[in-house]
């Protein structure tokens, strides 16, 4: 029996988002004449309940077998409309979207060419819809265990949460101890609680937890698989270990900015110039002193390596303002006679209790001077901070016998390697990139891989813990569900055309292709395949197609765009810009 497409077309006004520049009625009328279309309607908001009801009603009453919605980007509402057609008994892959908002109405002015373009986009989607095929959606069982990479505050907390919920956790830490950078800190801000009071119990709980396996001095060598079924090779002191995990949390942390990249500040050449991290060690010893001498003039300098485009760190490191405030206060308390100056550009006291803490610090006698020092030079047995006090509008030279540079946080040097292992994206500043800055702050673009702590950007302890717990919760969604859906729009091989050359396997980022040992052709593991299409492009014999994006579907779509189509009005002559080579 030959298949006869019965296509419904639904044109959305999106309020006035589309209707202001596109003649909706004309597009609706136009699409009624397209091959295979049996019904065409328009509505103010197609994504609304009444809008969806229109579609469902037509499917049931008019026996539609393909649906096209002309509205916004599929990133916005494809899931909505897929769910609607499924509700009415269609396969979700029998649905196609024409983006006449972002790709048309929003970027063109109100003229006839805009409506014509909308018509072409609809015609193109309708042409593809006639060739759409229902696809089977698979479910795969999930390994009920998680891998946490990194044993700092964030990694420890994520591991603990997931284990407490009843799942097995492997925690891999590269160095030979747990605790990360927090282990080097003296006290927190603004509560001044000793860090060890929080960190030690956490390490203890993780180390002794029956469901957590801690591997220190270990590193992840390779990761394969997909959400629910990751296979991870870990290099340990005792050799290579294989781990299966349903979800992975990346909590690899940060590095401290190397202040020698701003040589004019003299770090590394003047012993009087130290970093905030050096100061923590000094504070932990209980003595503020340099070469056995107590400083009488102490200068703190903010924003070293942060908010600095020249060293490649445009961002604010967020913690330094409060770290400096706490350290300056400590100096003032331990050495009441000392003159303590904090040089700042802006004081960012955004967190709970931060502004109040900043008030306390100033009231303890610490002087805040606005101006970011330009250089530090030696004068006798002291160093001189050269700056402009921008509130006075005067150049100043402030002598000091201890200068503390508030060094920012930077991505780890090996962040590129980690990103490569897990196929993570990185933001412009080099930290790992979350899937969405607002709505998916702990997810990554890779399903089943989540971010926690400073590997995603500078954070204080409270924020790291919050993100760690969020990442643990997100990771537990697939673990608890026990099954995951895998993408149905995967590639498939025409075995008559395949020569088994393997070029597809070379370009596949998901190791989804392999040579069949008997048949001598390539085979696709549909569970690993993400449907990116790279193999299809690489194949010299055109043997690889991608479901839902087949050659046939594409050609129909392109054919409709390049003019085998009768438009109601002639397109105005538009001069094309030459292609930049």
């Amino acid at each position, binding site marked *: 029996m030959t298949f006869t497409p019965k296509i419904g077309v639904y044109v959305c006004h999106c309020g006035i988002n589309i209707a202001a520049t596109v003649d909706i009625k004309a597009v609706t009328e136009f699409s009624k004449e397209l091959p295979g279309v049996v019904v065409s309607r328009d509505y103010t908001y197609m994504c609304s309940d009444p809008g969806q009801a229109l579609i469902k009603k037509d499917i049931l009453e008019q026996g539609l077998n393909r649906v096209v919605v002309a509205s916004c980007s599929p990133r916005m509402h494809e899931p909505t409309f897929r769910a609607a057609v499924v509700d009415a008994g269609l396969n979700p892959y029998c649905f196609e979207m024409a983006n006449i908002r972002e790709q048309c109405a929003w970027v063109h002015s109100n003229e006839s060419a805009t409506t014509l373009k909308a018509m072409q986009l609809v015609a193109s989607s309708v042409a593809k819809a006639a060739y759409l095929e229902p696809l089977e959606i698979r479910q795969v069982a999930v390994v009920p265990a998680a891998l946490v990479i990194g044993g700092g505050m964030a990694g420890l907390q994520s591991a603990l949460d997931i284990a407490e919920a009843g799942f097995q956790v492997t925690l891999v830490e590269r160095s030979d101890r747990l605790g990360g950078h927090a282990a080097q800190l003296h006290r927190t801000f603004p509560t001044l609680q000793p860090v060890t009071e929080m960190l030690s119990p956490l390490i203890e709980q993780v180390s002794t937890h029956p469901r957590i396996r801690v591997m220190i001095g270990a590193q992840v060598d390779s990761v394969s698989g997909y959400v629910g079924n990751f296979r991870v090779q870990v290099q340990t002191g005792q050799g290579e270990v294989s781990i299966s995990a349903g979800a992975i949390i990346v909590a690899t942390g940060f590095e401290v900015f190397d202040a020698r990249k701003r040589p004019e500040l003299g770090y590394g050449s003047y012993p009087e110039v130290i970093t905030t991290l050096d100061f923590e060690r000094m504070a932990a010893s209980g003595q503020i002193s340099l070469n056995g001498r107590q400083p009488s003039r102490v200068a703190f300098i903010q924003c070293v390596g942060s908010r600095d485009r020249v060293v490649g760190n445009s961002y604010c490191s967020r913690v330094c303002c409060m770290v400096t405030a706490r350290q300056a206060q400590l100096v003032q308390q331990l050495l009441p006679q000392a003159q303590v100056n904090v040089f700042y550009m802006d004081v960012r006291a955004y967190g709970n209790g931060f502004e109040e803490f900043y008030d306390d610090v100033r009231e303890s006698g610490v002087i805040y001077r606005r101006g970011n020092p*330009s*250089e530090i030079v030696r004068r006798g047995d002291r160093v001189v901070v050269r700056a402009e006090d921008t509130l006075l509008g005067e150049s100043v030279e402030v002598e000091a016998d201890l200068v503390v540079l508030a060094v920012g946080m930077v991505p780890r040097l090996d962040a590129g390697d980690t990103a490569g292992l897990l196929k993570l994206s990185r933001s412009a500043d080099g930290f790992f990139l979350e899937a969405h800055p607002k709505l998916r702050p702990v997810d990554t673009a890779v399903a089943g891989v989540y971010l926690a702590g400073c590997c995603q950007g500078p954070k204080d302890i409270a924020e790291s813990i919050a993100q760690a717990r969020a990442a643990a919760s997100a990771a537990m969604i697939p673990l608890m569900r026990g099954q995951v859906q895998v993408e149905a729009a995967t590639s498939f091989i025409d075995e008559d055309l395949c020569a088994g050359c393997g070029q597809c396997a070379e370009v596949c980022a998901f190791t989804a292709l392999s040579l069949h040992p008997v048949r001598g052709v390539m085979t696709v593991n549909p569970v690993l395949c993400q449907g990116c299409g790279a193999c299809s492009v690489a194949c010299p014999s055109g043997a690889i197609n991608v479901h839902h994006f087949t050659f046939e579907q594409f050609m129909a779509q392109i054919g409709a765009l390049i003019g085998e189509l009768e438009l109601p009005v002639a397109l105005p002559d538009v001069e094309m810009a030459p292609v930049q080579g």
Partner: protein
Amino acid sequence: MLQIESRQFSKEHGLFACIQCGKCTGGCPMALKTKLNPRMLIYRMLVAGDGFNLEGREELWDCTTCSTCYSRCPKQVNPMEAVIALRSAIVEKGRVHPNVKTALESTFRHGNPLTMPREDRGKWVEDLEVKRMADGAEYLYFVGCSPSYDPRVQHVARAIVRLFQQGGVDFGILAEEESCCGSEVRRLGEAGLFEMIAEENQELFKGVGAGKLFTTSPHCFNTFKNDYPGNGIQVQHYTQVLAGLVEQRALEFSKKVEKTVTYHDPCYLGKHNNIFDEPRDVLRGIPGVKLVEMDRSRQKSLCCEGGGGRMWLEGTNPGTRLAQWRVQEALDTGADILATACPFCLVTLDEAVKHLNAQDRLRVMDVAEIAVQAL
């Protein structure tokens, strides 16, 4: 009224990126002794609305264009270039300082700012066997104005000639064909004249088939490298070529120079172009030389106050010259020789040594002059 359209100006010069942190001014060597305050200048420009009055802003002529401000700015704003552009706005209105006027006119007429006759430009080399570039050579040696005319700096050019001939470098000069590079002209705000000079020089270089070029002065070097439109010519400062000769042992030093030497980084070599190591490599390669560093070295080097047209302008505070502070810093190291690699630094530092009556304790020499003693 010397009014400029400040909004437009701020946009063109990226001043809206400024966060008023004061790093430019904190590091500015002139800010401590004059009214020049790059940060506040930018702020006044930003808050001025549409029009900013340049009348009475004498401090614009204090800037030595040392580029400390730009090298420190965390937002990549360039106050120095803004100052140069503001000078241009003043010069455009015909308001030029008499000394500057003479220098600019001389550059226009004679191809040098020193009011020296053009035909005398090659005189320094008359007793030396030096190829003319027109006869074909691998390198063009662009000598520069003061090395051509100033007897003190001619000594440096002669040293370079000897060193490079000994090292087997195939180079030629332009002699009386050579004309000012225009670096100081541009920094004095004469943008139009600079453009003309640059065009003529480009033609000249093309005409003699120059593929590689080295200069005596970091100022010429910088302007060819960074101010001229790209022309495919490889531009180097002579210390870069010389360091290569020393490293590859194309140049062998046979004598010892038993001296303690401290090196002053010229702004246009160091801060402008990040060339810190090559001159030091040459000095370290000279047998007997003990190289000591001043506290303010490399990125922190203190400007001698000779750049940005300051060879012709007193500035608003002619009192203590930066070069005098600098010489004092050199004296503090106990060095016998204060080495540098820039004609302007050489002259200003020399003068400062005389001013401080320190001739018996410290000699100012160019790196090439020290190296040539070891041949």
